[in-house]
């Protein structure tokens, strides 16, 4: 008896199986994407709805569709709180952490990856160990230290403790380690000192690492809540995460306003990510790190 199946039948069966697999993949991915996107979509849609329609429609599919578009929630936010001030505080604090951090962490990463100095390995291990230390673990001693320094209720107390960042140092370290050493050597032979080599040759080459470090640091600190809560009491220096928490408890409870506040808080994150995304991907790939 001949059990052979005709070639055509085999290839058709294979094609159907492959198609079914692809279909299943897409289905799973679509469901996952919806699960992730739905809350964000809900937030954006609700921020443009009249406040009285936000809660009643929250349980139905209409929650994800704008019924009557209005910007009154956004106007409300600006009327009810000093949103501009909080935004400015957040930009100032996070911007300073990012800018200062890029300088400090890139130099530290370079020194660890490229310069030969006594104790380099020990310092590198220490930096690695710091990566797993959460803020909560050091918050109290840090609070004590900054209070002794008289830094409470200032921008400084929100910026300085976060300038040096173990993760960013490691990211730069990994990037610089992977850079061809000959570039630096060529620059030195061409007459450039260490500083000039860093500024003219290394740093321009390290744009992707800077972008990756800028984005990760920005994301890390834009939403920081615990530390500002501990060290600030005055709204003149408080950032957005504290403001949104306070705003939620401010009567009357208006979900449309809260959603508008949230949208305005998240928007800068999206802008930063979109601007730096191209380099970010390259930077993370080049540094050999996974997100």
């Amino acid at each position: 008896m001949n059990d052979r199946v005709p070639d055509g039948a085999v290839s058709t069966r294979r094609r159907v199986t492959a198609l079914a697999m692809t279909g299943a993949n897409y289905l799973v991915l679509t469901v996952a994407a919806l699960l992730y996107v739905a809350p964000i979509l809900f937030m954006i849609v609700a921020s443009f709805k009249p406040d009285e329609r936000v809660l009643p429609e929250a349980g139905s599919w209409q929650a994800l569709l704008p019924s009557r578009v209005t910007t009154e929630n956004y106007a409300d936010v600006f009327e009810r709180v000093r949103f501009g001030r909080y935004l400015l505080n957040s930009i100032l604090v996070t911007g300073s952490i990012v800018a200062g951090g890029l300088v400090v962490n890139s130099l530290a990463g370079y020194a660890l990856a490229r310069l030969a100095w006594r104790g380099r390995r020990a310092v590198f291990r220490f930096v690695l160990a710091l990566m797993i230390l959460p803020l909560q673990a050091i918050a109290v001693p840090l609070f004590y230290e900054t209070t002794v320094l008289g830094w409470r209720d200032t921008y400084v107390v929100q910026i300085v403790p976060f300038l040096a960042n173990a993760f960013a140092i490691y990211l730069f370290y990994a990037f610089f380690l992977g850079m061809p050493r000959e570039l630096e050597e060529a620059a030195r032979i061409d007459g450039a000192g260490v500083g000039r080599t860093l500024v003219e040759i290394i740093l321009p080459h390290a744009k992707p690492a800077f972008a990756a470090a800028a984005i990760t640091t920005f994301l890390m600190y834009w939403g920081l809540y615990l530390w500002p809560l501990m060290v600030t009491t005055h709204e003149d220096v408080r950032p957005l995460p504290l403001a949104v928490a306070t705003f939620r408890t401010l009567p009357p409870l208006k979900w449309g306003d809260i959603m508008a506040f949230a949208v305005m808080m998240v928007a800068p994150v999206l802008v930063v990510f979109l601007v730096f995304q191209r380099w970010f991907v390259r930077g993370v790939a080049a540094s050999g790190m996974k997100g």
Partner: protein
Amino acid sequence: MATVQLRSVDKVFPDGTRAVRGLSLDVPDGEFVVLVGPSGCGKSTILRMLAGLEEVSRGEILIDGRSVNHLPPQKRNTAMVFQNYALYPHKTVRQNLGFPLRMMKVPRDERNERIAQVAEMLGLTPWLDRRPKQLSGGQRQRVAMGRAMVRDPAVFLLDEPLSNLDAKLRVQVRAEIAALQRRMRTTTVYVTHDQVEAMTLGDRVAVLRDGQLQQVGTGRELYRRPANVFVAGFIGSPGMNVFGARLHRGEGETFRLEFGDDRLAVHAHVLARCGRVEDLLDEPLLAGLRPEAFSPAAKGSGPNRVRVRVASSEALGHENIIYFDSPVRMHGQETTAAGAGREEDSAGRMAARLPAAGAPPAAADELTLAVDTGKLVLFDRQGVALRSGK
């Protein structure tokens, strides 16, 4: 322009590896010296020490008579071309060429003039505003050369600059480098593992092995009068056939060398090059014959004719390289740059370079070859060449 002198230079890396041992070498002003040797022989380390990228563990390096051991790279007035060119990827060709001049604080007008001059010389003018990644391999190589030339340094250091080019381009650029150096007469130290490059480019060639200088001389000297069996095997492709031998007195002015069942007659004048004949007789020696010492001969016995069995052959078009089972014990040659595997494979085999007449012989064919013993080189059992006066 400058002289370069290395005085008993040692390099020991922190992990204890001794990369260079007691190296002494003088490079006169304007000379083109090629450092050649198999991978790991220390040639690149020597170049890096000259450039100031590696510290000297012991000994002294002098450039133009001045000790540079403690000078940083930027103060040595050397220019280096790296194996991977090390062009600054974010700078244009013009900026790459201008960088060393900017570091020297050369005024802008003069800088532009010198960039234009070098670009013209190297045929880079149309590409001045391109970035390295927009150039071909050959163009990149020329930019790297240009960046080295533009400063008019005292010494050029070139670290295997042709190894990333394809075979055809390599020949072309090799000729260009030779012509440039002849025109500029800048003292040049060039590192390669390719003996053809070494022989064709260098005024003198320094052969290195395990961080030690084996011999320095013109390509012709190295080929004809190798200082030891390493140089004999390394220079030439295939290398010299070196085998265990014993000399016996023959008739009149000739001496006998046993070659399996055959005997080779060696004239006294050949031996005179190697020292006192009496000291050589009946002593265990090593003898070396270049593959071209063999030539096809008519069948039958005759003076200096040997019968061999072909093991394999390589047809190169204009000539055939024949490998045959050696009738005598071959000296273990850890000498070629091709790697240990091939050395073991060729153990017990000899190579002959024969003119290509018809199809190359097949494996197991028997051939009769004539041996020109006038080209015989003798070494002592330690592998050191025997020379008269030694």
